[in-house]
């Protein structure tokens, strides 16, 4: 079998090809997130200044809650036969984890851009939401790593996919706080470095946890 990063690239590419064929994120998750952005004003009122004020927070909440669905998409189910096949092919479990997370990262980034655009247009937000690439990239990376790890932990169990959001939502709090506070600091012209660093640390911790646990999780069957 080839080297670690070559395996990562193959796994990520395979995941993205499977997703392109299934279209679950493109045709279900992204529209679902956009609908959520539209539904909120119907529930809480259509006062434009209020929506401008709370819009960025709502956007990040939708990303954190609905973005989990990217990790539990049907085209990426980590079933026992899939694991056995990867193990027999000599794929490093850590490479499989990183590859899956990389594919989820790409899909989450697409999710963020489309839903963010909807939020900017519907809530009349400034373009600050979409021109802070560090926050968008780190949120997508952190959520992809966390979601992929949670999906690996619960895979092959009863009610597995239903449990992933319960595991991911509370653990994504550092990412949510970091993203919202960094955006607010950006809008107010203050330094958002501290919040961005918090997101970097969270992402690195999740990456280490995912890579270290990939081996033991593959053994569980």
């Amino acid at each position: 079998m080839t080297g670690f990063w070559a395996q990562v690239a193959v796994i990520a590419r395979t995941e993205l090809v499977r997703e392109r064929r299934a279209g679950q994120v493109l045709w279900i998750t992204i529209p679902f997130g956009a609908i959520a952005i539209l539904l909120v004003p119907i529930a809480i009122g259509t006062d434009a200044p209020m929506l401008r004020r709370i819009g960025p927070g709502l956007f990040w909440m939708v990303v954190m809650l609905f973005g989990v669905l990217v990790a539990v998409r049907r085209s990426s189910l980590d079933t026992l036969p899939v694991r056995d096949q990867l193990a027999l092919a000599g794929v490093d479990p850590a490479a499989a984890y990183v590859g899956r997370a990389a594919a989820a990262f790409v899909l989450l980034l697409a999710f963020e851009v489309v839903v963010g655009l909807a939020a900017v247009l519907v809530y009349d937000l400034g373009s600050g939401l979409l021109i802070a690439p560090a926050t968008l990239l780190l949120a997508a990376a952190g959520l992809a790593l966390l979601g992929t790890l949670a999906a690996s932990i619960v895979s092959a169990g009863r009610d597995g996919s239903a449990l992933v959001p319960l595991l991911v939502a509370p653990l994504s709090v550092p990412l949510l706080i970091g993203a919202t506070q960094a955006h607010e600091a950006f809008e107010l012209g203050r330094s958002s470095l501290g919040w961005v660093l918090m997101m970097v640390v969270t992402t690195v911790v999740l990456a280490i946890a995912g890579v270290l646990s990939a081996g033991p999780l593959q053994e569980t069957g």
Partner: protein
Amino acid sequence: MTTRTSRSPRWPWVLLAISAAVAVTAAMVVGPDAVQGQLSRILYVHVPSAWLAFTAFGVTMLMSAMYLWKRDLAWDRRAHASAEIGVVFTGLAIGLGMIWAKPTWGVWWTWDARLTLTAIMFFVYLGYLALRRTTDDLEARAKRAAILGVLAVVQVPLVHFSVVWWRTLHQPPTLIKPEGIDMDASMFVTLMVSLAAFTTAYVAMMYKRVELARLEDELLVAERSTDGPVAGAAVSTPSIDGGA
């Protein structure tokens, strides 16, 4: 799987009865707070509950790490027991905090960093317990739960330091802070007695819950190994005399 027939000891329960009696008496006898009056007595249950929740989740992390290292199910049972107790005491700490908050702050709940993060920690460990119910395979369950048990502990320092990192309505640390203890001596002693009683309760519950978890695991293994018809009751083994 390791099979042991030993029962959990009785001494923690005896110690708990004594320490609980002393703690309840002390909490009733100590004078009320100059500002909060009788309401301050909730402190002697709320603070130990929160302390026990943090301790229990810390122990869950340690036991989970030990399981990942040693791969002995006994460590997993300890992690499970500690997480269950931690969830109960987190719920108790939140509930008691709300009872205290209504007359003090005028609301049952406020969007304070400490409160919100404690509630989130509660859900993280509910997720841990839910995860354990997704499979009957002891090894798989232990491994998955251990990984989450190690990862989830990140919530504990977040909750503890939330009152330092953010300007919150919840008061900052009174006991664990560099400037020393900021509390009346009699109240401090009463709180320490209560902390000791709650810690004893934790030890007693841990012994019992670990014993129960071991029995549950043994039952699961016994149920699996019970000899039954290979292809169900519809198919029977042919016999030499031609009978069914």
